[in-house]
């Protein structure tokens, strides 16, 4: 296989998926983000968003904190250092692969 294609195919697929990339990008710009904001800016349905979040949580890329604000339940998400690292590596990887291709 051509080395440029090989490099492109070696990207972290957990991060490469568009919805998850959007989630990680939002989380990278803040200390912590609550679920409704993420749902609003991503345009994903609650169920779809939850499913992507649990995949990222299982991989250790983000931390989920559930609490109550008064009587209202609130879910707050935070990017872990390993999630931040994975996003940084993914960006570098993609840039390198695209540069090589052009």
């Amino acid at each position: 296989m051509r080395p440029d294609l090989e490099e492109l195919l070696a990207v972290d697929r957990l991060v490469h998926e568009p919805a998850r990339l959007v989630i990680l990008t939002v989380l990278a710009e803040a200390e912590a983000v609550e679920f409704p904001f993420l749902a609003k800016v991503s345009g994903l349905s609650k169920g779809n968003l939850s499913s992507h979040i649990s995949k990222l949580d299982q991989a250790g890329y983000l931390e989920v904190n559930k609490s109550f604000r008064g009587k209202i339940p609130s879910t707050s998400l935070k990017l872990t250092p390993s999630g931040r690292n994975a996003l940084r590596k993914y960006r570098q990887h993609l840039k390198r692969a695209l540069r090589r291709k052009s």
Partner: protein
Amino acid sequence: MNHTPNNHFDASAEGLKNLRKLTRQYGRYSKNAVGLGHVIGGGLLFLSAYLVDHNQPGKFGRLLLGVAPFGWIYCKEWLREHYYQFCGKVEQRKKVWENPLQVLLTGITASISLAASGFAIYILLKNFSWELLLGSLVYVAVLLAIPFIVWRYLRAPYEFIVGVALFLFSAILLGGTLLPGARDVFVWGFLFVRYFMALAEIVALVMIPVGLVQHLEFLKLRRKMRRVSKEAA
């Protein structure tokens, strides 16, 4: 199967750039941008400084101005949580120097509070009376609350300046002027007091346009977010 979110914040480079910008802008309202809170705080500070400097307020005026900073804290926190972060909380990213700076500022205000409280207790012990005891208690209570308020509620630089000035005025207006030595301190420290009042008035006048600009930026951001959710629907 297409997982691309169905709004303009797609996973393209441009879409992600817009999303990063929007998150940062919205997150500012969790800490640094106070918007209308700045306008109210600035107006209140200007009024307090002006009245104390030019026209000593009466008992009712003193009570009102003395309690107002507590109302301002409540109002600004309410605006932050229920108005500016209308779509869920997004905590602004911390800079490396923020925590040490907060510790330093709290430490400085705690030292000043303790010194001024010690001075008030010294005067009380020298000239004890029941009226003075009440005045001193209120004065010391407000002073000792300042470091806690700085640590918990005054996170943005402008907030710190306005908040500390407002609570100092509050301590003076609620109990400080009852202390027999207070007049001497005002005369003795005349230049310092004049300087402090003038500085407070200038800061207050700067805060109002800063807050208004932040509020207008927020209205623009809210329109943008509503458009996004309409497009997504």
